[in-house]
């Protein structure tokens, strides 16, 4: 079987892959595993509310829709990272979102983490996402 995006590009990019969003069953556990601080949870809930997603840290992550899970994961990564010159590769993330949520997510990254460079996976490999 062909290599996963994480195996192919994980050295150069922080890969957020639609097929490997979380390792835990709840947001609370996910934040714990990733070493996040308690206030991160409130920040994630606030940002996700902009997408119309009512996030509960104790709710099973798989009970959200696929698109909602993608948004929660991206927002969580956004909150866990400091603003730094980092390359993030979004694999099948943007295609899973409605047009409105797609633009909202890119805007949130731009506002919250302006130093981060976003990429999507095209036929020839990672391609930068132009600023909207």
């Amino acid at each position: 079987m062909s290599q996963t995006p994480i195996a192919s590009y994980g050295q150069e990019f922080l890969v957020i892959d639609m097929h490997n969003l979380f390792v835990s069953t709840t947001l609370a556990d996910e934040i714990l595993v990733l070493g996040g601080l308690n206030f991160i949870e409130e920040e994630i809930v606030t940002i996700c509310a902009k997408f119309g997603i009512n996030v509960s840290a104790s709710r099973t992550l798989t009970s959200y829709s696929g698109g909602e899970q993608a948004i929660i994961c991206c927002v969580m990564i956004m909150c866990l990272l400091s603003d730094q010159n980092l390359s993030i590769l979004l694999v099948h993330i943007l295609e899973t979102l409605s047009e409105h949520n797609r633009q909202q997510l890119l805007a949130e990254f731009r506002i919250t983490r302006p130093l981060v460079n976003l990429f999507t996976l095209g036929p020839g490999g990672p391609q930068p996402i132009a600023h909207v």
Partner: protein
Amino acid sequence: MFELPAAKYPAPRSGLNYELPVAIQLPHSSCVFLQGDNGAGKTSFLEEVLVPKIHKAYDLLYLAQDIEIQQTTMIATLALLNQPVPDFLPDLITAWIKAATRCQVLILDEIDKYFKKDLDQAMTLSRFSLVLTVSHINLQAPYRSMQHGYALRFQRNHVRTVTLSLEHLW
């Protein structure tokens, strides 16, 4: 070919209630795009309402959103059928669909995002009597070999209520 009466359809597993004010009547060779915002209840409606009804009358092939989980089944089944097992995911999906020669109904839940070329060219969709597709990419062209096209729109009005409306596209 497929009819869904105007009614309220509860979906116990997701806790949603779907309201269909006007009956749906789909002729042979129809393609239906399920459209709505993330979390509107499209997949839940597929799984808890449409699939159980369709399955009573037709053989269907359902490619769910979490395609990674289905890969092992696809690989094993193609191998059992003594057919080539492609390594590349879009080719594997295509081979799987082509192997399902008995199925009259095809359901694709956000599958077109894996295809960089014409989906219809890859899958020969016109051989299906009914194709249901969930997609946020909003491409109609790959499905134009189907004679009729519709958009089934999902509007979540309250926390647990989703209103459905059908628009005829072609």
